[in-house]
């Protein structure tokens, strides 16, 4: 589907955990959205010019609405968090390749999310026909999106402070619950993705991980958001793939993280 920049209307927004916001926007971009893709939102404040890449948490294709769940990390996201129903925002999308959902059909899978990497797991779980073990890691008992995830698979929780589920991270939750899978889909902080890459390589199973990096354009032109790759990338032929367009989802064995 062709990428577009257009004006979206905020249809709802609420804070679902401290600093974590849940926003629905009405936009035709919802029609072409694939799990694991992202959109870019543009702040109105002209001192903050660059688009903010945010993963798609849910896509309602009938109502043509997208849901994003994001953390306030700076001036841009702080501006977004103040938007109310009826406000507008400039959106670029839909971007990136998304997860290879079909590959999971009929398999036993891990959907693993850490912190603000959890939101894309929801749209992925909703679109996947598989035995879904959703393993998510939070800081504490503010387990946002838990109910939504529980409707779409078996949820295992890890918290850093041990207040809910396994004390520790998502890898600890897998061990403590004695879980196994044929395939992994993951999004989260880099230490978690490195641990998943190692685990998948040792277990000899594929792992599709979603990466993030500072971006300027979001469409593959600026070459700001690259990741080192095992094979030559098809764009520059220098083992540096563009996360925004060649990713954000990569098979873990393909990338050097």
């Amino acid at each position, binding site marked *: 589907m062709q990428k577009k*920049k257009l004006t979206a209307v905020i249809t709802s927004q609420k804070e679902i955990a401290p600093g974590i916001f849940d926003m629905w926007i009405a936009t035709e971009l919802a029609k072409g959205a694939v799990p694991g893709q992202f959109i870019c939102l543009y702040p109105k404040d002209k001192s903050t010019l660059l*688009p903010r890449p945010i993963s798609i948490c849910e896509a309602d294709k009938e109502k043509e609405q997208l849901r994003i769940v994001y953390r306030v990390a700076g001036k841009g996201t702080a501006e977004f968090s103040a938007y109310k129903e009826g406000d507008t925002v400039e959106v670029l999308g839909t971007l990136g390749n998304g997860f290879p959902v079909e590959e999971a059909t009929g398999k036993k899978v891990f959907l693993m999310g850490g912190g603000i990497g959890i939101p894309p797991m929801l749209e992925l779980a909703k679109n996947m026909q598989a035995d879904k073990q959703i393993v998510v890691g939070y800081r504490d008992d503010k387990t946002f999106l838990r109910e939504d995830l529980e409707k779409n698979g078996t949820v295992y929780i890890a918290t850093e402070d041990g207040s809910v589920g396994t004390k520790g991270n998502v890898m600890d939750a897998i061990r403590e619950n004695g879980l196994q899978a044929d395939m992994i889909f993951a999004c989260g902080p880099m230490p978690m993705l490195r641990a998943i890459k190692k685990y998948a390589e040792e277990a000899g199973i594929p792992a599709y991980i979603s990466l993030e990096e500072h971006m*300027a*354009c979001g469409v593959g032109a600026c070459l700001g958001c690259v990741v080192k790759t095992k094979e030559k990338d098809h764009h520059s032929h220098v083992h540096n793939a563009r996360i925004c367009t060649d990713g954000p989802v990569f098979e873990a064995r393909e990338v050097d993280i």
Partner: protein
Amino acid sequence: MNTSVTIAGVTFKNPVMTASGTFGSGMEYGEFVDLNRLGAVVTKGVANVPWPGNPTPRVAEVYGGMLNAIGLQNPGIDVFIERDIPFLKQYDTKIIVNVCGKTVEDYVEVVERLADTDVDMLEINVSCPNVKEGAIAFGQKADALFGITSEIKKHAKQPVIMKLSPNVTDITEMAKAAEAAGADALSLINTITGMKIDIHKRTFALANKTGGMSGPAIKPVAVRMVYQVANAVQIPIIGMGGISNAEDAIEFMLAGATAISVGAANFINPYATEEIVQGIEDYMQKYNVADIKDLIGAVK
């Protein structure tokens, strides 16, 4: 209404170009804008061999602009000739190839490889602040700039634009050196060297520590330098630095630019180039400007 401009014998349908490094070779933004509407596409810098570029983070936002330290990642001249030139030839726009290198020989190799290709002009990048060897080393000393310009002119079949760095004491000295060495045109400004520190992590925002600043915040510096250079040399100038809309573009032309390039604005608005083409036409209509050339350097 005549919107065409001519630089070194090459006529552009309008003065709107893309700033090197912000537009790839046009493929990515071809999804958003009709490349046929642009005066020229100026490509990402290309070297004799592939360059991997710098470690990440490569980009950071600053007030009213951004820093980048991409480090000229590019696939090298072989892939460029095989893939990017045929892509651009599908469109009715001029092709300006930005050439980078570490040594004079590197630049000459690329220039020679391009000699038999169907590209319209060469822009020589002697002003990238983000690579250690070559590039900026040639762009901050007048004698070095004179030397590389003369050498490239000996080998180039297409007209040569020298892209100037703003990170110098007196840009007119650099402009005069390039002109004296035979440059057909100048483009300015490249990015301004900057730095950002993350006070929470207590690290540099960019892996390269320093980066080139671009975006609307640098525009007044760029307009001033275009004006100074326009009054110091006879050769045409392609002006750039923070151009976001048609008003900015007109401002650069009034200061002395024959054409203008749109850079970081593409990231903020992927339709920026085409909107600027339209906006310039609207301005000409509003002020009854029959020929856009009447705007060039009109403010003395």
